[in-house]
């Protein structure tokens, strides 16, 4: 169909990458992947090609770790971090209170472009973060995903599990420049252009036709014999209302670039936004910043966060006011994420 146009674009890419001079490739090419033009397979699938002046980094793999010139003890810790990242369910009931792994959203073990690869955090932090209005380091960024995306409470800063996770992030960043001046290729979940109108009903149709086979009609996902297979998109098994993916544009960006599993970029922009709209207008555990009033929450966090989500909206078809509840999901009332709302650097002079 559009093959010809794409291969043409590729020729240009090869040239501009060479000119940009910020390519870092760590993964060993396995014969078929040409290391000179990283992510060529993705470009052929329809992902945007790396642009001149972008930082293009190919993170090393776990196979590369075996050959790396690192202390054997460090290798062990990185392996532990990888294991925690891809099987975070081992912390269920301790730090994780939903059905997710980190790799449920960060596909391809946190290495994949357009699936919020996690290594950029290791080279751009510490930095100011709009979500909590102060300077965060890597551990605090990881802790954020525990409190919201995993509906849990993070391992302590400096603990073995936290150290292992941050070591894995840093390993993936191997060779990439710290505090880069260039924008990073494939960072985050870049949303497609927002269509004029979004439709809940159309989103529901897309959902039932393209997503329900795995995530189930009620969005609860699927465990087979007690083992993780398909994560929950809403309900108690999913992320809470404070997670980044409840923002409609973030959900649309995730879905367009990553779902249905194995068929990225197959939905039209309209379909991706509609199904994102449908999905983010379902109930899920309360935002841990909630203090008893949805209106207070909107006042406090509307400007920085919830203006992008459906938090506090009244659903058209059933008059249900979203997030107007004190259901914390599996963590109940006892487990309170210790990192949420902790102020930092309050005494610094301007």
């Amino acid at each position: 169909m559009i093959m010809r146009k794409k291969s043409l674009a590729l020729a240009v890419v090869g040239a501009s990458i060479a000119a940009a001079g910020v390519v870092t490739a760590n993964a060993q090419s396995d014969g078929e992947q040409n290391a000179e033009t990283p992510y060529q397979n993705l470009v052929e699938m329809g992902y945007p090609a790396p642009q001149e002046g972008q930082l293009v980094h190919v993170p090393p793999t776990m196979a590369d770790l075996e050959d790396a010139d690192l202390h054997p003890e460090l290798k062990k810790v990185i392996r532990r971090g990888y294991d925690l990242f891809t099987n975070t369910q081992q912390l269920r009931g301790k730090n994780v209170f939903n059905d997710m792994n980190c790799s449920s959203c960060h596909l391809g073990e946190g290495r994949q472009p357009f699936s919020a690869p996690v290594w950029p955090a290791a080279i751009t932090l510490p930095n100011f973060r709009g979500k909590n209005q102060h300077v965060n380091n890597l551990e605090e960024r990881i802790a954020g995903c525990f409190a919201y995306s995993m509906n849990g409470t993070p391992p302590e800063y400096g603990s073995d599990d936290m150290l292992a996770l941050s070591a894995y992030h840093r390993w993936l960043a191997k060779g990439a420049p710290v505090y880069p001046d260039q924008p990073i290729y494939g960072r985050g979940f870049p949303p497609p252009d927002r269509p004029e109108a979004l439709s809940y009903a159309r989103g529901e149709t897309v959902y039932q036709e393209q997503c329900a086979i795995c995530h189930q009609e009620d969005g609860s996902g699927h465990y087979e014999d007690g083992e993780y297979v398909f994560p929950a998109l809403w309900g108690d098994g999913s992320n809470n209302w404070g997670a980044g993916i409840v923002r409609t544009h973030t959900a649309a960006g995730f879905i367009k670039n990553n779902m249905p599993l194995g068929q990225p970029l197959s939905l039209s922009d309209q379909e991706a936004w509609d199904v994102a709209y449908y999905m983010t207008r379902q109930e899920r555990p309360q935002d841990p910043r909630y203090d008893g009033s949805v209106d207070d929450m909107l006042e406090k966090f509307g400007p920085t966060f919830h203006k992008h989500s459906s938090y506090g909206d009244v659903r058209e078809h059933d008059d249900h006011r979203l997030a107007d509840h004190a259901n914390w999901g599996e963590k109940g009332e006892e487990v309170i994420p210790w990192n949420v709302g902790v102020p930092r650097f309050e005494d610094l002079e301007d």
Partner: protein
Amino acid sequence: MSKRIIGGLGLLLGAGLYTGSVLAVGPGDPDRGQTAAATCTACHQADGSGKNVPGGESWPRLAGLDAGYIEKQLHDFQAGRRQNATMMPFANMLNDQQIVDVAAYYSQMEVTSAGGGESASDALLNRGEQIANRGDWDKYIVSCKSCHGPGGKGVGSDFPGIASQHAGYIRTQLHAWKDGERSNDPQDLMGAIAKRMSDDDIEAVAAWYASQTVSAEGEE
């Protein structure tokens, strides 16, 4: 999951595309299934183990496959959505009730061991394991495990168990999808992956799954 399949069948029946018995179908009965499966044993064997046939057409293990999955495949053969000259005549011999019965019969059998992975090198098996459990994201090959479940033991009726399936059979199916000869999977979920796999990838993952055991017994 099986609700959707039945719904789909209802549509077909309504449209008159399907010419078999239109009598109401009762729940599957393994005993009746055993009788109906008398002709099947020539290839799929009495214990449902099938056979890996090097250089020829392998017969898939049916023992322990999900009943809903077996039913769908038999209906797909009948309707021509799945093509295979050897198998199609036997699918056509069955009426709707017999399909449900043989599915019940094979699904409750113990998973048997598989052939075709015995002489695989360690390097091949390691590559196979990588594709099966972690995938190869640089080629956008999603891990098999993410759909076929932990250990490749299958998920519901839509994602069949592939662990301890014959290497020859896994290989031909993946090639069939890659070449566009099998396309009865929902939403092209399997086809999209198979088309990104090289012959070596297919060889490796087929050998690895064939050498996995699912139940306590069934050691090679």
